[in-house]
């Protein structure tokens, strides 16, 4: 039997920009065991609910993550709105959906780029980020922030998108979709990409489910769970079918995300078509008294905000479970059997976001 050695991987690693630390137990070049540890960038954001008023905390919630920022704010606001029994106007729901899908687009394009970089396909990486830039421009034009949108608030949204801008976005969607499909074709059909990804980091349907994986990691293994099906915001009106792949390897997870890019474009198109006129927000009076588990589908999977209010302006407790935390056990299962050189690709395939995870 070859001698076992332990190779530390991260938290600073050239391929992986996320501060996760893995102790890889190797036999020659083969990974046989993995011990993950996190805790490098804990910021104590959950504690802050006791110091910030519940309306102010939206800005804090938004800054939990730099990629799914809008969805964190959305999840938090939906939770508070549910506790306080506030019904959000329809236009606000549609705009929330549009911004959520824009965030998903830019997150997935960012990930596709990073993933291509992880595989060593630099050209594809730059192309993905070039496309992502146009999404960020739309976000900046409509909300005022490229990654921190700051448009969600308890009771609705803070800013409207004018009809002119909506039409412009709608017109831009067709050429953008074409570009995304060209990009997606490389990920889905290119032999070199397939050769690198297929059969790598496999996790079966049952394992993914029992380990509580979330998002594309779960759907890549054939489990059709997507919270957008529950119909929060405007997803109920728009109708949505989860995108599922069955192989459970890195290629399947990549394919789920590529297809979700197309699905997001389609959702934005239909949301712009169907957006109703009306007010943007309702006045919120009083303070939250009660508790609620609020759930939203982020690009990386399901995020859960547990919120408990005690009738004062400050919440008593907030607990945030982010998708990456749920995916780490699945990751530990995926890595054994992979070559050392494939470890960055496998780790990236769950789309880790550690600053989310540690809050």
């Amino acid at each position, binding site marked *: 039997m070859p001698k076992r050695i332990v190779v530390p991987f991260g938290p600073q690693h050239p391929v992986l920009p996320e501060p996760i630390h893995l102790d890889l137990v190797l036999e020659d070049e083969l990974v046989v065991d993995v011990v993950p540890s996190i805790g490098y960038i804990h910021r104590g954001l959950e504690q802050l609910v006791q110091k*910030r008023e519940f309306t*102010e*905390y939206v*800005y*804090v919630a938004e*800054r939990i993550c730099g990629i799914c920022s809008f969805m964190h704010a959305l999840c938090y606001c939906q939770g508070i709105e549910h506790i306080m029994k506030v019904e959000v106007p329809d236009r606000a729901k549609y705009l929330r959906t549009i911004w959520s899908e824009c965030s998903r687009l830019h997150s997935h394009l960012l990930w596709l780029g990073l993933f291509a970089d992880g595989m060593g*396909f630099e*050209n*594809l990486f*730059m*192309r993905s980020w*070039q496309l992502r*830039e146009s999404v960020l*421009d739309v976000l*900046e*034009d*409509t*909300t*005022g*922030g490229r990654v*921190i949108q*700051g448009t969600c608030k308890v009771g609705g949204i*803070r*800013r409207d998108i004018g009809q002119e801008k909506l039409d412009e976005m709608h017109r831009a969607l067709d050429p953008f979709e074409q570009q995304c499909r*060209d*990009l997606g*074709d*490389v990920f889905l*059909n*290119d*032999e*070199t990409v*397939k050769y690198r990804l297929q059969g790598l980091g496999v996790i079966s349907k049952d394992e993914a489910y029992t380990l509580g994986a979330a998002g594309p990691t779960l759907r890549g293994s054939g489990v059709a769970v997507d919270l957008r099906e529950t119909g929060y915001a405007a997803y109920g009106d728009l109708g949505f079918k989860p995108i599922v792949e069955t192989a459970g390897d890195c290629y399947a997870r990549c394919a789920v995300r590529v297809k979700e890019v197309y699905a997001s474009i389609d959702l934005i198109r239909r949301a712009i078509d169907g957006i109703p006129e009306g007010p943007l927000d309702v006045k919120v009076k009083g303070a939250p008294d009660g508790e609620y588990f609020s759930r939203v589908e982020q690009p990386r999977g399901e995020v859960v905000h547990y919120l408990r209010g005690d009738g004062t302006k400050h919440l008593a407790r907030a607990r945030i479970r982010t998708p990456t935390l749920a995916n780490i056990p699945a990751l530990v299962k995926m890595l054994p059997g992979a070559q050392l050189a494939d470890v960055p690709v496998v780790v990236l395939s769950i789309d880790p976001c550690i600053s989310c995870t540690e809050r």
Partner: protein
Amino acid sequence: MGYFEMTRTVLRNLVRGPATRQYPAVPARTGPFTRGHVTFDPTTCRSCGLCSRRCPCEAIRIEKEEKVWEIDRMRCVACGDCVEGCPFGSLTMEPEYFPPVVEHVVERHTITYVKPEKPEKKPKEESAGTGA
């Protein structure tokens, strides 16, 4: 199929010139609502303190007696809540990002509003009071 998927894109990109903006030769792109930095107008501020209470980062400090309005640019995250909350329109959000700084300085403004208005109001109130 399958081997030269990327070639078309590569060739197109080769002839198309750079996709990035040539910052800083070309100024950074900003949108109509870009949240760059907060500016303060000392001539209209009535020291109500709402901005300071609303700020989620405690970046604004206000002292009514000394007529001082301070903003800590390193704390401010440009959320725009103070601008929305100011009832007198003293705060505006400008699209330019604030240049990076190396020293932690708090920007201090002296509020110049109150003086002309207050002496006018007080006698009125008093006369109204004595008249009734």
